[in-house]
């Protein structure tokens, strides 16, 4: 296994799909020292974009507050423009009017870029799944997502855990070959 992280047990990370993706991106082969240094630098200084739609945005702000500080993970500097940001934490509900804006923001970000879907609304539509006529049922219908953080709203500690998982994923990447995109789920066909 080419993933070398000291503090987390590998058994914690049981998601098969992600393991396969990690294998596909070439982590079986031992990463060289330079790759390790590049990945270490990238994972410890992820700069997020200020993007908060609704209630989860408050918990994201609270994660940046003095009590649960995510500056210790390197995510301190919020960039207002997508051209300078590395990760977009989609915190909040996305509706049909906002989806093209989100796609445009994602397209404006420079590679390598990551997406964290925070909260139940961003994962699958959340409490608004039934009976709502404008909502997008999950951000992964619009942009490819790397980490999903469940909760409504998730605690700031859950956001920190999600960030750590993202760092772990970055450490296992092959930096010169680019990121393997997670598949974008197309909008579901409604059964008759």
């Amino acid at each position, binding site marked *: 296994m080419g993933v070398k992280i000291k503090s987390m047990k590998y058994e914690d990370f049981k998601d098969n799909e992600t393991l396969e993706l990690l294998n596909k991106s070439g982590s079986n082969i031992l990463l060289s020292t330079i790759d390790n240094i590049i990945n270490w630098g990238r994972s410890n200084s992820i700069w997020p974009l200020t993007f908060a739609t609704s209630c989860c945005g408050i918990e994201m702000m609270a994660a940046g507050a003095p009590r649960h500080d995510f500056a210790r993970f390197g995510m301190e500097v919020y960039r207002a423009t997508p051209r300078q940001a590395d990760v977009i934490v989609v915190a909040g509900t996305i509706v*049909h*009017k906002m989806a093209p804006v989100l796609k445009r923001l994602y397209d404006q970000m420079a590679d390598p870029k990551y997406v964290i879907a925070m909260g139940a609304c961003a994962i699958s539509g959340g409490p608004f*799944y*039934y*009976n*709502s*006529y*404008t909502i997008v*049922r999950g951000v992964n219908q619009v942009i490819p997502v790397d980490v999903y953080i469940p909760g409504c709203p998730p605690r700031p500690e859950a956001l920190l855990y999600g960030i750590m998982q993202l760092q772990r994923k970055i450490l296992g990447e092959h930096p010169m070959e680019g990121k393997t995109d997670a598949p974008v789920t197309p909008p579901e066909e*409604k059964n008759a």
Partner: protein
Amino acid sequence: MDNSTLRQRLEELTVNAVYPVNKQYTEIIIPAESYHEFCSLLKNSQDMLFDYLISLTAVDWKDHFMIVCHITSTIHRHTIIVKTQLSDYGDPVADTVSDIWRTAEFHEREVFDLFGIRFRHHPDMRRLFLEDDFGFPLRKDFTDESRMIVK
């Protein structure tokens, strides 16, 4: 003024009005032709002075629409509910009260957006929340198979 005095005063001023039973506030249903004139009377007459419109909304009763306004007075501290019935279900039109209370301009835009009720003489009759080709979602016959998953 309390509810009974207010009711007497209103009965002096109007004809053809209906007074439904409401334990909390005075309620009056005005025919659509005299709706605008009645509202400006409510605002301007000295003993009533209803100057603060709390909310303006509409209810779909499947064969007619009803516009409901909750209005209160900041000086006399009484509240009234004014309703008017729009009989044309296919293409409902009502008078605007945005020249009497400025906040009605935006409440009426929302009613147009969600129900499809047009308001005559409104300064800016555009949709507020939804796209231009969306239906009118709060109507009772609204179904959208592609976007809604109904439980």
